[in-house]
Structures are given as structure tokens and as C-alpha cells.
């Protein structure tokens, strides 16, 4: 006997709690702080992570299954925005039963506020394994500089 056979109509709730689990796994239940532009619990897409180095700021957006040309990246007044639309594969004619539709579909937009020393004229973008990587260099004047003392 498979446990799943015993679920019956309660499967709807099982699916709901599965979605909840997923969101918790992705975003962290009860996480203390979030970006003011990403407080949604409905599963933001793409998932973002931002790292800083001495030379540049690196932004990674987990955006699997997109054509790079379908991703729009723009910067305006210190706000970097990633937008586009993720289309679901049309249902196959032969498909009979759908058990799960958890993957994100539809239009998306994520906005990140850039630090003041970001050089927004030189943003580089690349896409690999479903991850969009944006490199935003720091302005030359903001980079740490070693000053030699003459005598």
C-alpha cells in the first residue's frame, strides 16, 4: 500500500503545504529581515543574491529556463531592475493528468537599489546554467587606493 493512496481529497492541502514548504525552504520562514522590495511571501522570481567585492558588486538572479534575450535589465536613478516573462511550455496534447505546477510562470520584475559608488554605465550581464550574473563595477574614486609617501 502506498501512503499516497490514502490521501484522497486531502491531497489539495498536501499540495498547499508542499508549496508552503518550498517557500520556507527558499526564503526562510520567520527570517528576521528582508529587502523592502522583496517582502512578498508568494515566492519572488527570480531569487536574488548580492555580493560585494573591492572591485565590483555582483548580483546573481536564479532565473532558470529563460532565453537571455528575454531578460530585460535596466538601471534608473540608482535602481537596477530585472524583468521579463517566463512562459510555461504549452501543455502537450497527449498530456492527461497534471500532478504539480509549482514552477513560476508569468511576468516578473525584481528591483535592487545600488550603492552610491556603483558605476551604472559599465554593468556587465551574463547567463549560465539558468543564473543571470550582473557585475556592477565600483567607481574608480571609490576603490581602495594605496598612497605612496615620497621623501
Amino acid at each position, binding site marked *: 500500500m502506498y501512503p499516497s*493512496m490514502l*490521501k484522497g481529497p486531502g491531497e489539495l492541502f498536501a499540495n498547499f503545504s508542499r508549496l508552503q514548504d518550498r517557500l520556507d525552504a527558499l526564503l526562510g520562514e520567520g527570517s528576521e529581515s528582508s529587502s523592502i522590495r522583496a517582502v512578498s511571501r508568494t515566492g519572488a522570481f527570480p531569487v536574488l543574491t548580492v555580493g560585494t567585492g573591492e572591485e565590483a558588486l555582483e548580483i546573481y538572479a536564479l532565473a532558470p529556463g529563460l532565453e537571455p534575450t528575454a531578460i530585460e535589465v535596466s538601471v534608473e536613478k540608482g535602481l537596477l531592475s530585472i524583468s521579463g516573462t517566463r512562459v510555461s511550455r504549452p501543455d*502537450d496534447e497527449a498530456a492527461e493528468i497534471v*500532478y504539480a505546477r509549482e*514552477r513560476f510562470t508569468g511576468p516578473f520584475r525584481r528591483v535592487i537599489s545600488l550603492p552610491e559608488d556603483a558605476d551604472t554605465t559599465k554593468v556587465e550581464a551574463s547567463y549560465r546554467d539558468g*543564473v543571470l550574473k550582473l557585475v556592477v563595477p565600483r567607481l574608480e574614486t571609490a576603490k581602495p587606493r594605496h598612497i605612496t609617501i615620497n621623501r
Partner: protein
Amino acid sequence: MQANQVSRTTSPARPEPTLMPPVDIVEDATGITLTADLPGVDRDDLVVRVEGRSLVLEAPLRLGQAEALAFVYSEIRADRYRRSFELSGELDTTAIQADLKDGVLSLRLPKVERAQPRRVEVRAAA
């Protein structure tokens, strides 16, 4: 009983947190197609294995040379994906096909021959 041929197994609490990839699962006459979002996974790192009745997907999430950075903001709570599904007997676990492209895994789980629909010819009575 067609409904729940693939369902999530209740995995015991693991000390290491993992990310659960979102999936789409569709069944047709000849098998089940599972699509999973696994961004940041290299083809060589992806593990798809069958353990008894369970299908297990596992892979590390890698973000290039990100180790050199200080992360100031992150929505990623773990660095490994893991999810498992309980399979039923009519799926042919020896013929699973996997394809990973742009962080999206497509898995095809065909049904064994005898589980596929067959047209039964009804002969008119003489």
C-alpha cells in the same frame, strides 16, 4: 488508481538545510514527465538516482567564483538542492531519461510496456 504516482516522500529531518526545487509533473499514456528548476547546477554535478522506490534529485548550487565575495543580501538559504519522489511499480526505472538545460531539468519516466494502454479489439459475435 492513477492519481499520485509521483508524490513527495516525507524525508526525515536532516541536519543540513537543502533547497527544494519547484517541479511540474505531468502524466500521459506512456509515462510521466517531471520538470524541475535547478538554477546554478552544472550537468556534471547533478545526481539523479533511484533508491528502492524513491527517485532522488540532488545537486549543489554553484555561483561561479562567488566565494571571493561578501554576501550583503541573499534569498538563498542553502547551497544544495534535494528532493525525492516515491515511484510506483509501473514506471520503468531503468529507462529514465534526463536532460539539463539552462538550469531546468527534464526527466522522462516511461511506463513499462505492460502498463501502457492497449487497444482491445472487440470482435462481433458470429
